[in-house]
């Protein structure tokens, strides 16, 4: 009789599992890996009763492909970089935001609002901004010897580099070395950058844009690209990790909250955005993630040590020397085609 009892139990369990508990208020968030602290998510749920279903991606391309795949029953909130905000807006993939539902909107840095990629912030609200520079483990490599993107091409770094798995940032290095704008739309210049990057490939050990700090911390790599926030987080655990702004100019970017078409919980998504714009919440995000926030009220709340960190808040001349990512319009497929080749190792 034992097998029969066993089968009965299974059938019962199946029935129980097939009918999950009734749906509470939810919000489906699709975000970069480790970009919102867990404590913040928990606090949001505790305050509003809205459950957060949180999944992550490691590149704009993956996010975009996934959104295309799940048109009608999809995410409520994603966080693309500026040029994808522009692209997705153009392709009618985004829901226009209701600014009435975002009372904290007035407190944002005017320099980051109403930018050409989304005039009037119809679709997007900036979440954080930061830079991509060079990370060095000073126990292994003297930081003084590294000051430019060009240094990554040195033959001594064969098979040792970490690069971001991010098309625009990788092309940024090569375009900058060649003296071009990193938002170049000129196929000729992009091709030259591609040729330069091909020469870099033997030096590359791995691509990682999930959490580039971890290979540094685990001793797998001691030099490569890194985001400033990741470098900041790495320094909390190992002060030997140094963040360097290359002399050709670091890549600067802004990531923004957008609501994709097909979102089912649009109001909850607005509630979440507004929650994230609260100064005390934005403050936690800066402290934990190490990126700069557009929420002006949060900056005032920060400890002096955090506020004066050149890793999180670079000096004006460093920002000027770098370049903010903007839309490249019809040149995007050209980048993609070369990126594809680099990534497959052609």
């Amino acid at each position, binding site marked *: 009789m034992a*097998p*029969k009892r*066993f*089968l009965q139990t*299974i*059938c019962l*369990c*199946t029935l129980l*599992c*097939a009918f*999950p508990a009734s749906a509470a208020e939810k919000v*489906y968030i*699709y975000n970069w*890996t*480790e970009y919102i602290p867990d404590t913040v998510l*928990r606090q949001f749920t505790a305050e509003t009763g809205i459950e957060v*279903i*949180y*999944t*992550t991606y*490691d590149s704009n391309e993956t996010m975009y492909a*996934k959104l295309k*795949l*799940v048109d*009608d*029953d*999809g*995410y409520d909130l994603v966080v693309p970089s500026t040029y994808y905000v522009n692209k997705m807006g153009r392709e009618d993939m985004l829901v226009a935001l209701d600014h009435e539902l975002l009372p904290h909107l007035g407190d944002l840095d005017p320099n980051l609002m109403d930018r050409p990629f989304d005039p009037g912030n119809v679709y997007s609200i900036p979440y954080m901004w930061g830079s991509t520079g060079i990370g060095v483990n000073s126990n292994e490599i003297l930081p003084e010897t590294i000051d430019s993107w060009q240094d990554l091409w040195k033959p001594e770094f064969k098979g040792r580099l970490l690069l971001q798995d991010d098309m625009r940032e990788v092309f940024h290095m090569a375009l900058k070395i060649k003296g071009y704008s990193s938002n170049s739309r000129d196929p000729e210049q992009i091709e030259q950058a591609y040729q330069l990057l091909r020469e870099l490939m033997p030096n590359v050990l791995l691509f990682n844009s*999930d*959490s580039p700090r*971890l*290979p540094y*911390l*685990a001793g797998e790599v001691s030099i490569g690209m890194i985001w400033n926030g990741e470098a900041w987080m790495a320094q909390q655990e190992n002060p030997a990790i140094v963040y360097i702004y290359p002399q050709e100019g670091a890549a600067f970017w802004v990531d923004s909250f957008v609501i994709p078409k097909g979102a089912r919980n649009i109001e909850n998504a607005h509630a979440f955005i507004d929650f994230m714009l609260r100064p005390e919440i934005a403050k936690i995000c800066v402290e934990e993630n190490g990126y700069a926030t557009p929420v002006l009220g949060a900056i005032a709340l920060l400890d002096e040590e955090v506020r004066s960190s050149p890793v999180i808040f670079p000096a004006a001349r460093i920002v000027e020397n770098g370049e903010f990512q903007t839309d490249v319009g019809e040149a995007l497929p050209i980048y993609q085609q070369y990126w594809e080749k680099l990534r497959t190792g052609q």
Partner: protein
Amino acid sequence: MNAVRLIYFTLIFGYLYLPIIVLIINSFNANRYGLSWDGFTLQWFPAMLANAGLMEAAKNSLAVAFSAATAATLLGALAAIGFRLYRFAGRRILQGTLMTLMMAPDIILAIALLVLFVMLGVSLGFWSLLLAHITFCLPFTTMTIVARLQGFNPFLLDAARDLGASESQVLGRIVLPLLSPALIASWLLAFTLSLDDVIVSSFVTGPSFDVLPLKIFSMVKVGVKPEVNALSTLMVALSLVLVIISQLLLKEKEHGA
């Protein structure tokens, strides 16, 4: 000869088990990154339970594995009965299809089903994942049950039919009871396959339905996670239990025979 054999077996089993042992030890290690032994701790188990996303994914995975294993076992039993006990046109073609499904790499089935779902407009989530898992478990459950039917005397069924039993009575009263150990074994196999699957899940599920393998994958891509170590230890323990159950069933079968 014996010494050589012993050394060889030790080396191979060492290689097969060492990583698992390291993993289990690290799930009790106070050091977050498992780089050195910082003392015994149980803290990662509550940490794992407190990780809402991980628990949600575990619940979803169990739901799919339970349902898929049950459906694939039932369907597999029907397929085994159909293939072994009935003769009908197209039987060989269907059997060939089933064998091809078994041999094809998971990734082929995964993208083929993805294309199917997208073209038919099925939204990706619980149902698409369930259908996919039933399909990729089906060949394995069918084969397990067919093996049990191999030594089966078809005259027994004819006798029952001659005595006036309807086909459903024949199946319900004679075939299914005979099959029950095989049913359980194939259920366990399908359950494990479904819970283990990364490849098919990463293509055919959607935002509303995150499952354990995908969650673990996105967590470990990043680096060592103590919660994942704790979870893995539990999963190893679970699979040990499953192996023991299936071995006991085999024993029972041998005794019965």
